[in-house]
């Protein structure tokens, strides 16, 4: 028997671990540190992207489930 989708189960398990921080600077020069800051920002972009994706996956899943219930509840005489 079908049941409503467990929407949160659609999120990859590895996404629950979060995004790793950028590696420490290789050396101790100005370039090493600035490059590390930039790499860290890239990791932030990945994390923010996953946040948006996760919310989107769950919201769309819940909307489909709501539409399914609404369709099943339509009166028998309502064909549209």
């Amino acid at each position, binding site marked *: 028997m079908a049941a409503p989708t467990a929407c949160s189960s*659609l999120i990859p398990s590895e996404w629950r671990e979060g995004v790793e921080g950028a590696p420490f600077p290789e050396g101790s020069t100005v370039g090493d540190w600035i490059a590390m800051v930039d790499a860290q920002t890239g990791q932030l972009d990945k994390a923010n992207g996953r946040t948006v994706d996760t919310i989107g996956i769950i919201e769309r899943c819940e909307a489909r489930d709501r539409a399914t219930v609404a369709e099943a509840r339509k009166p028998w005489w309502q064909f549209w």
Partner: protein
Amino acid sequence: MIDLSKTGGKIIALAIAAAIVGLVVWGGLTLFGNGLNIRRTATLERGQAGAAVESGKDAIGTVAGAGRRDAGIDDQTRENDHAIRSAEGASAPVSDAADRAGRDSLCKRAAYRGSADCVQQPDPK
């Protein structure tokens, strides 16, 4: 037998007929209602199965898109790294104190909890 020639008999006959009609109507409505419930349940189950398939496809597509996006971010990081290290002054040293303070600060962040860079401390100079 009921004597229909008398008023009392007619009333009884009408009452019996009304009861029979009422039973038929009630039975019909009950069957109709049950049929509607069965149909509604079947519609719901079909809908839920379809919604689950669509949600699964949506999740797979979204995660695949995230993978492509992350690969693009990594490409940008490598490109930026090259540009930064190629810039004038990039090879200038940072003071030992500032370098140490920066690393110690990172190690206070949750993102680096348990990181090998934080667990292993350099030998004191």
